[in-house]
């Protein structure tokens, strides 16, 4: 989608929302102007920035730890069938355990702390990353590994120049997937057991039935994630894909 088409689609979405909100005329369906005014108020009083930075910090910590653990175990399980067979059962449990159950168990076992919150998110997201990376590792073409063996490449070269470029599309897919899932779960974790962050604020607004603030916070956060996608993930992907 080029930028002009993108702009037109956003423009129509805004117009549609505004028209619907005027037509419905209800306090639970605020107009775009109301949401923007509310957003600017939260920005001016500094509340939104404060809570968003806290949530972003949690997202970053959970994301990086999940990715490191997920890539490590994904590669190991993809390379060694024995390890794969051994851990596959735990992986299936991890994949099917509802996020809500993990969060509640962590809060009960380790108390209402940041540690429990992050642990719950990491435990919930690591299995998905492992599955993605494991499949990527299994898809490594043995013909390039043969080449590395014949020319006696160093282990470092084999990992960085033979394995990683082949796993990288799976790493990028996992990055996108986990980023989008982690920030949503962080909000749930904050809603259930933290006293700060966007999730906590949303729970407060829910109790006050303040739908305008809920939407203002949500759109602000979506905007931040889109910025990360556009200015960090997309350039990395373009750089890695340049040979295609």
């Amino acid at each position, binding site marked *: 989608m080029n930028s002009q088409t993108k702009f037109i689609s956003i423009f129509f979405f805004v117009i549609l929302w505004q028209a619907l909100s005027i037509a419905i005329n209800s306090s639970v369906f605020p107009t775009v102007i109301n949401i923007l005014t509310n957003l600017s108020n939260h920005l001016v009083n500094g509340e939104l920035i404060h809570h968003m930075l806290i949530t972003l910090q949690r997202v970053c910590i959970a994301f990086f730890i999940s990715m490191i653990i997920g890539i490590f175990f994904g590669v190991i399980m993809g390379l060694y069938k024995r390890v794969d067979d051994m851990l596959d059962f735990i992986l299936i449990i991890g994949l099917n355990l509802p996020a809500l159950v993990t969060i509640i168990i962590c809060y009960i076992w380790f108390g209402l702390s940041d540690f429990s919150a992050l642990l719950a998110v990491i435990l919930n997201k690591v299995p998905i990353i492992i599955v993605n990376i494991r499949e990527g590792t299994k898809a490594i073409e043995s*013909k390039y590994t043969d080449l590395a063996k014949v020319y006696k490449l160093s282990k470092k*070269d084999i990992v960085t*120049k033979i394995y990683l470029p082949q796993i990288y599309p799976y790493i990028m897919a996992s990055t996108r997937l986990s980023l989008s899932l982690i920030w949503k779960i962080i909000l749930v974790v904050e809603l259930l057991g933290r006293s700060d962050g966007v999730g906590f604020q949303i729970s407060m607004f829910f109790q006050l039935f303040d739908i305008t603030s809920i939407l203002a916070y949500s759109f602000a956060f979506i905007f931040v994630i889109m910025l990360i996608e556009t200015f960090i993930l997309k350039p990395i992907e373009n750089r890695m894909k340049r040979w295609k």
Partner: protein
Amino acid sequence: MINIDIKDKRFNKKDILKDINISIKQSEFLSIIGPSGCGKSTLLNIVANLDEKYNGHVDGDFSNISFMFQDHRLLPWMSVKENLLLISKTKDLDEIKQLVKLVGLDNILDEYPNKLSGGMARRVSLVRAFINKPSLILLDEPFISLDYPTSVSLKKDFLNFCKEFNPTVILVTHDISEAIHLSDRILFLSKNPAQIIYEFENINNQEFNLKKIDEIKNKILENYPKILEGEI
């Protein structure tokens, strides 16, 4: 000197290779001919240590070997320069530029393999095969699926490099003319299991003379007409 002594190599409870005993002198160019699927590539993989599940042993100096596969096998995510630098032990870019020029390529170092024609990519893989001045080169039908003129000129470049660096070469192919053109000695393999059934030596041709190649080919067929039965 390389000694290959394979008692047997089995796959799915069937013998693929059986009682293969080959000695190759230093700087000798040996071709191995056999019908499709007879186990020629398996034999080459054993020599390259890519296949370790067999009974027997392979002795020789394998510290500096190279392999030209049926495909060019350049890493698609790396430029030509990066591909060559990855393999080069000296990492000398000037030397790489010189070798690339010798095979008639210029200004392609920054290109990615998918931007090269089949012939150009094979030339780059030829440069890669000689970049470390190997003592042994293994060739698994590297000249197939190329148009005739490209194949002829690539073989010429290959022989020029051989004259300069003097490696021992083992080529597996199903093309008798190609084997006669390039090698000093030819071994013929049977199928199910692969065994050496005929040997033709002292060819010492190494020039592209169709008449001479045909003469030698006829001589081989006269001496051992069964080769035709083996669909070689």
